[in-house]
């Protein structure tokens, strides 16, 4: 039977290879955050609070462009809706844990930790220790992410404006968007959402992002329904 220690270390180990992608991505996200003129120390506190690079960058961009608070909050939360899929998938595996442990693991939930641990946890026959695998991968991801975002912010604040580094923001999202398109229905959703976002960019109160995302989701679902 695996011990608590061996499960935790196995989780850490499962995440280590992913760090090769996480650390440069964290550095660039940190640079992107300070492009919105947020001081690095404030950005770091925000990153610790939210632990979601995409949501933080979008929120700061919308705040800079003068969007109302509710639109900022709603837009950033729409981006994080994907965590609900992970949450639903982890729920049966974490059922017997205390509220405190469940809350800690929920805070540590990320795309990377989920990917590193879900297969191991689903196949494990030792539910009393298997959550430590997720704790190991989740803490490793958290530490690597916050450190690299923090370094990126302090470095980014010193880089010259002539480098056009603000362009790293759309490129960061592009790098996530393309692999997220896994079939033609998702491609349809992405094309429609992108086009709608351009058409709706003058929508009142900067609601264009939310409108475009909802239209994309709806079109994807309808397209899939018709094909079935």
């Amino acid at each position, binding site marked *: 039977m695996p011990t608590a220690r061996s499960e935790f270390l196995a989780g850490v180990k499962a995440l280590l290879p992913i760090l090769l992608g996480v650390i440069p*991505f964290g550095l660039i996200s940190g640079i992107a955050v300070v492009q919105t003129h947020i001081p690095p120390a404030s950005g770091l506190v925000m990153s610790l609070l939210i632990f979601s690079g995409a949501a933080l960058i979008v929120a700061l961009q919308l705040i800079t462009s003068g969007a109302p608070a509710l639109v*900022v909050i709603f837009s950033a939360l729409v981006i994080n809706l*994907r965590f609900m899929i992970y949450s639903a998938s982890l729920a049966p595996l974490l059922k017997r844990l205390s*509220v405190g442990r469940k809350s800690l693991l929920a805070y540590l939930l990320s795309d990377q930790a989920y990917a590193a641990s879900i297969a191991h946890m689903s196949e494990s026959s030792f539910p009393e220790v298997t959550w430590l695998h997720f704790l190991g991968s989740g803490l490793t991801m958290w530490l690597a992410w916050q450190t690299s975002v923090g370094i990126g912010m302090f470095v980014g604040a010193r880089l010259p404006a002539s480098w056009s580094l603000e362009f790293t923001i759309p490129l960061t999202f592009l*790098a996530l968007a*393309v692999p997220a398109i896994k079939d033609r229905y998702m491609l349809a959703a992405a094309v429609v*959402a992108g086009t709608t976002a351009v058409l709706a960019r003058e929508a009142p109160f900067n609601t264009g992002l939310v409108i475009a995302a909802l239209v*994309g989701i709806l079109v994807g679902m309808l397209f899939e329904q018709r094909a079935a």
Partner: protein
Amino acid sequence: MNVWLIMIALAIGTFLIRVSFILLLSNREVHPLVSRALRFVPASVLSALVVPQILTRDHSILISFANPQLIAGMVATLVAWRTKNVLFTILSGMVALWVLLALVPGL
């Protein structure tokens, strides 16, 4: 509203999304319609973020090859599609933009 209040609301909201099924709805099944909709969230949201930002040059939309970001964005899309690598995608887009800005005067 204060930026920090927005950030605190975001921290709470993001935590509630993460904790949703793990803690609050642990005995509930996900409605099939909800899980079908959630499947389309990443592709739709990310695309809605990317496209206008790539096309915006000097605060207005420019759909033309005179917009270096459009070409750099196309290069990065191709690299993202072929490699699925975050770092290569960002680097290729930035290098393409720098090359265009350096080579073509007036962009």
